[in-house]
Every structure is written in C-alpha cells, then in structure tokens.
C-alpha cells in the first residue's frame, strides 16, 4: 500500500498520508476547514456538522472530520452552498446557546465564539430556544455550565476513551440531552478531577473552579504572609500564552511575575519534588531489602489517586504513602518554613500554581491538614495564574528573571522532569540506584522512561537484581498495567513489576487539566522537551544532591521515613464508591 495518495483540494493537487481524513488532507493544501467538534487527539464523532465539504461525484455533503480520503478524490471545501450551510449550523447552535460572552470564563479562548467570528455571523437570525439548566459547582475542581454545552462530545471522548473514568455521559435524548453525571452532581460522582474534559471542551461549559478572587484577597490582606509554589510543568507552559515558542522555559520570569503579583515568598514545588524522591526512593529501597511487597506505585498524581481509590482499592498497599510534592510543600510551609522564618503559621497563606485541577480537590482532602491547618490554602491552575498576570497587565515575555526565596526554592534536574510522564520514575531511579549501590548511574538519562508511548516497560539491573519498571500516563493506559498486577495478585503469582509510575493525564502534568488551552499531545511534547532540556543543562541532576534537601533533613526532618516525615509527608488512602 502506498504511504501517500494524491487528492485534489479546491483544485489543488496534494499528496497526503494514506488513511487521512479530509480535514487532515485539506491542511496539506493550506486549508483549515472550519470545525467545532473535531479535536486532533480524539476519535472524531462528527457531531457538529460544521466541517462539511463536497466530494465530486458524491451526493450531498460529507463531514470532513470523519470521511477518509480515497485516491484522486476531488474535494471542494468552499462554495456558496457550503458556506451558507455552515453558517446556518452555527446559527442553530447559537440559538441554543446563551449570549454570555462578556462574563464567560472562556471568552477569548472559546472556539464557538471564534467560529462565529470566523464565519461572520453578525446577528441573531434564529430565535433562541434555551432551557434553564443550573450550573453545577459542587465539585472542588470542575464546574459544569450545561447551558453552554454544545454537545460536541469531546469531553466524553476524554473522560471515557482516554481516562476510562466514565464520570460523565450523555443522558436523555434529542433536545433534552445533557452531559452530566448519574447523580447530576460532579461532587457525587466518580470524577477524579483530572480536568482532561476541560482541556478539550471548546466552550465554557466545563472549567475549573476559580480561586483567583480568594488569592487576590489574601494578597491584599496585610496580615497575611502569602507564599507560593509552582509545579514543574508551569515553567514550560507559559510561553505559548505570551507569543513565545511553546515549551520555552520561563522559570526566572515566572518567579518575577509572582513577586510582581505581590507574593511575599516565592518558592518552588520542585523542591518538594526532590523531597518526594528522598521519601519514595527510601520506600523503594526498603521494599528492595525486604523483597516486597511489589509493586511500588507512585502517588504524586491526585487524579490517579482518586482513580485508584475508586476502581482499584485492592491495590492500596502498593501505593507509595508519600504525599504529592504540592502537599509536602503545604505541610512544610506551615511548619518548617514558619519555624525557620519565625512566622506564625496561622498567618501563612499557601498558594500553589498547578497544571492540575485535581490538586484543588487534593488540597481539601481532610488528611491534608497535618500542619494543624489546611496545608495548602488555594490552588490556581496555570490558566488562572495567567489570568491574574494578564489582569494586571504583566507581559511575562518582557520582564526580567528573578530568583526564588531561600529554603524551599532550589531543585535538581530530577525534580523538574516530574512534570512529564516517566519523570518521577527516572528521578527515583537516579537516587535509588545510587543509594543502594553506592555508585552513580552510568548516565543520568534513562531514555526508556521518556516519550509519550502509553505504557513504557523496561528493566534495570541493581546489584544483580533485575527490576521491572512500568510507566503509564492517561488512566486508560494505567488500567492496562494495573490489570496485569491485579491478575497476578489474584492468581497468587509474583507481581510482573517492581516499580510503576502512573500519571493521570496523558503526557503527565505537562498535559494537566489546568494547562493553557490547545493542549494537544504535540503541544504537550514541546512542553516536556522544555523540561528535559532544563534537566540536561543542570549541574545537580539528582534529588539527594540538592543542598536544601540535605539541609531540611539536617535541620528539621532528620531522616527519610523518620518520625517527622511520617507525620508531615506521608498519608493514607480510603476506599471510594465506584457506583456513582
């Protein structure tokens, strides 16, 4: 079979990969066919009817997103008829859509708004047919505004096909269809808060629960000491929103912007990422010595944790008890930081900037109060952070670099790659290998753990013991690995793996549900590259070599898995109802 075939798009002959759909083929001819339900990384459903084209010799219009090309197909993407039909479809959609742009969180990023502009729809031609559907803001992470939903189905593809969570589904039929959870409430559902549905939603029908106002209030309150941490993935996800090449690492400018916003202390989640490696690495070493139980599974992705608690509670004993870096940071901010800087912890407000919507949920878990306070007070997504920056007119691209504050701001290369799939595994192996063998790895780079393959499996030899490792990102991929573990367990066989890393989101946190829109896999890869580049260029690339990490054990924690660690840095899990 030929790998490319010729097609003719609006009279122009182009060679396109065999198996392309018309919408993809047209791109080779420089034409971006208007679309609404199509999303590059998802199975096309053909729901919206906007992307129609004509194919010579065939009756009627074809949906370009679902129709595969055939050799020498003649495609017409624009004719008066096509354009009128597209406009009428969008007018129909608008007839069933509130005119809330001025106050809509999605305004400016909204694909429906943009499409309406693009097609030149300049007046309301069809009378509105609206149904009142209340906003569901019950969830700590995800807000649903069903009136703005255009039923494109993208969120279902994300939640069902990719994440295999099935929290949401289309209920009812015809005009009364609504995408919702069985109970009608996101809070009372199996939703794991990953926000992948938000990432792909073209409208404001799904978005994160905003905490911007609360953060401004804290910043403006002179009695509060407001400190901030930023997840590894943030530094490589800002550039694209400020007209810089995607994936550019803006860590210094990020610190500066936070200072300009008025945060009293700017630290970095990467510091606690290194700390996580110390704790989790030690857990792993313990299991090595005691020959199990295997596998050890990472715990820093709160989306994954809720997934495990809901669908794989039998695997609880396999999960590392380490809190996520965000929560370790939170607990330390009101203990270690308070002590070292001599600040009343009651006055401290801890804010985190996260690529993640699940972190909002995680921060409010009842277990997450080991400092005696809410360890983390507010969680902002990358998008919320950017909104704040834009609110006050800071142009990140143009400002200077700054440094974080001392104590919890330094990090190793191992920490920074936490932000992408395979990074935690690689970081942990760098440290564990050295702590066990006393020797450094030949190379810090563990290439087998990198890249976006759904499940990455490899082995590594540690002093004659062959360790099997698996890395999965996206929960559909995680299921593949977990089912193998489960099956072995049920049959009384040894675990097929020793160590597993799981990240809820495809690509890991670079693809988190709180990241800037347009977060395709391609974009996620660009961000991941930014992280690997940073790691590669760093002097300190192993967590245990981070001087501030050495210091915190000396001054405060004493030793990994010690008493204080257990109290502040480790947690436990609960079993959740899967029938919600």
């Amino acid at each position, binding site marked *: 079979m030929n790998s490319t075939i010729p097609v003719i798009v609006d009279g122009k002959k182009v060679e396109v990969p065999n198996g392309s759909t018309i919408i993809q083929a047209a791109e080779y001819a420089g034409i971006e066919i208007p679309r609404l339900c199509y999303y590059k990384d998802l199975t096309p459903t053909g729901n919206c009817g906007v992307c129609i084209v004509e194919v010579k010799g065939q009756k009627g219009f074809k949906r370009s997103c679902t129709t595969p090309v055939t050799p020498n197909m003649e495609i017409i993407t624009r004719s008066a008829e096509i354009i009128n039909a597209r406009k009428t479809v969008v007018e129909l959609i608008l007839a069933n859509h509130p005119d809330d742009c001025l106050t809509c969180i999605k305004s400016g990023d909204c694909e429906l708004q943009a499409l309406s502009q693009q097609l030149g729809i300049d007046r309301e031609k069809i009378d509105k047919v609206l149904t009142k559907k209340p906003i569901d803001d019950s969830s700590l992470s995800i807000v649903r505004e069903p009136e703005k939903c255009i039923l494109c189905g993208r969120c279902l593809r994300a939640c069902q096909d990719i994440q295999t969570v*099935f929290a*949401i*589904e289309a*209920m009812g039929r015809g005009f009364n269809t609504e995408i919702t*959870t*069985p109970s009608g409430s996101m809070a009372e559902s*199996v939703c794991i808060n990953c926000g992948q549905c938000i990432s792909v939603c073209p409208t404001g029908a799904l978005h994160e629960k905003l905490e911007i106002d609360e953060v401004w209030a804290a910043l403006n309150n002179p009695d509060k000491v407001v400190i901030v941490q930023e997840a590894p993935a943030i530094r490589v996800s800002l550039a694209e929103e400020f007209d810089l090449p995607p994936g550019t690492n803006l860590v210094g400018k990020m610190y500066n912007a936070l200072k300009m916003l008025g945060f009293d202390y700017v630290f970095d989640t990467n510091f606690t990422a290194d700390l996580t490696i110390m704790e989790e690495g030690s857990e792993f070493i313990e299991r090595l010595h005691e020959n199990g139980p295997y596998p050890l599974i990472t715990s820093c992705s709160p989306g994954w944790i809720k997934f495990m608690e809901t669908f794989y509670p039998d695997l609880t004993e396999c999960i590392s008890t380490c809190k996520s870096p965000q929560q370790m940071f939170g607990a330390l901010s009101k203990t270690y930081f308070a002590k070292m800087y001599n600040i009343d912890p009651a006055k401290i407000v801890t804010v985190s900037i996260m690529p993640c919507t699940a972190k909002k949920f995680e921060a409010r878990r009842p277990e997450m109060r080991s400092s005696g306070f809410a360890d983390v007070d507010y969680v902002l997504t990358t998008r919320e952070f950017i909104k704040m920056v834009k609110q006050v007119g800071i142009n990140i691209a143009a400002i200077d670099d700054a440094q974080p504050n001392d104590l919890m701001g330094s990090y190793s290369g191992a920490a920074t790659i936490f932000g992408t799939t395979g990074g935690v595994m690689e970081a942990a192996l760098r440290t564990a290998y050295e702590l066990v063998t006393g020797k450094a790895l030949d190379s810090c780079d563990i290439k087998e753990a990198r890249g976006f393959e759904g499940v990455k499996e490899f082995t590594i030899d540690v002093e004659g013991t062959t360790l099997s490792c698996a890395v999965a990102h996206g929960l559909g991929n995680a299921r593949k690995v977990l089912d193998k573990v489960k099956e072995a367990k049920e049959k009384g066989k040894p675990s097929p793996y020793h160590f597993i890393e799981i990240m809820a989101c495809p690509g890991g946190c670079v693809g988190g549900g709180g990241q800037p829109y347009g977060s395709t896999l391609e974009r996620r890869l660009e961000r991941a590259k930014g992280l690997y580049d940073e790691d590669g260029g760093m002097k300190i690339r192993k967590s245990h070599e981070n001087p501030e990490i050495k210091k915190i054990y000396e001054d405060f924690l004493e030793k990994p898995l010690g008493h204080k660690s257990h109290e502040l840095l480790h947690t436990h899990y609960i079993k959740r109802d899967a*029938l919600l």
Partner: protein
Amino acid sequence: MDKRILQKYPPNAENLLFALHDIQDAEKENYLSEEDLKNIADYFNLPLSKVMGVATFYSMYSLKPRGKFIIRICESAPCHVAGALNVINEFINVLGLEKVGETTKDKLFTVETSACLGVCGVAPACMINDVVYGNLTKDKIKQIVDDLRAKGGSNV
C-alpha cells in the same frame, strides 16, 4: 430488587436492554430506581453513567415511579389525523389528571404519549402495558379505564 432476574442473562453489556426491561417490569411502580440502576451496573460491570445513559435514552424506560397501568397514547401522524389529541384529552379527563406524564393518585394509571406503536391500522390507538387498544372512542376509553380499574383494584 430481585437480583435473580439479572442472573437470567450472562453479564454482558449486550443484554443490558433486556435487563432494564425485566427489572422495570418487576418493579411495582414500573420504573427503574436508583438502586436498580446501581445493581444492574454492578452486575454487568458497567459504569453507572453508561447504564443511566441507556436508561434515559429509550422511551420505554422511566426513572420516575409510575402507575400500575401505563397508558401510552400514540400521537404520530396517522393517529393524529384520526384524532389522537381527543384520545389524549379523554384519558386525561376520565382519569382526572392535569397533563400527560402524570400518575393518578391511586397509583393505578400513568398517561404518556408515544411515537407510532405500529398498530396504526386501528388508529387512534394506545398501548396499556402490553396490550393494544385501537379505534379508540370516548365510550371505549371510559370502558377501558373502568375495566382496568376493576382489575387493578382487585390485586394492588
């Protein structure tokens, strides 16, 4: 809910529609309760959202309690031109209801409208549970309701 009903079917999603029918029929109030749906999801090892998605898609299933007799009146074109609107009004009148979708206070009757029931030869027509009633007239409707009431009263 009697879980034995489910065990009739292998736990394969292909049998979901059957199971929903049977469980609903076994419910005294002719509907699928939350508990039913959860049991079904559990038995078939399906996400509850999928089961709910299916149960809310098909018009023969109800997630709200209904009467013992479900009167489904056809309102498609052939029945419409034969006077389906009068039939709807007559049932509502005779049963003392306000509108379609309601259940009588004695929980005996629920009036629903339906698309073509495939018995248009006797339009205007309705189905009450499994039984077809055709060529409906005012008198016939009254008679039907009286008969069912007599029947329903005896074994509720």
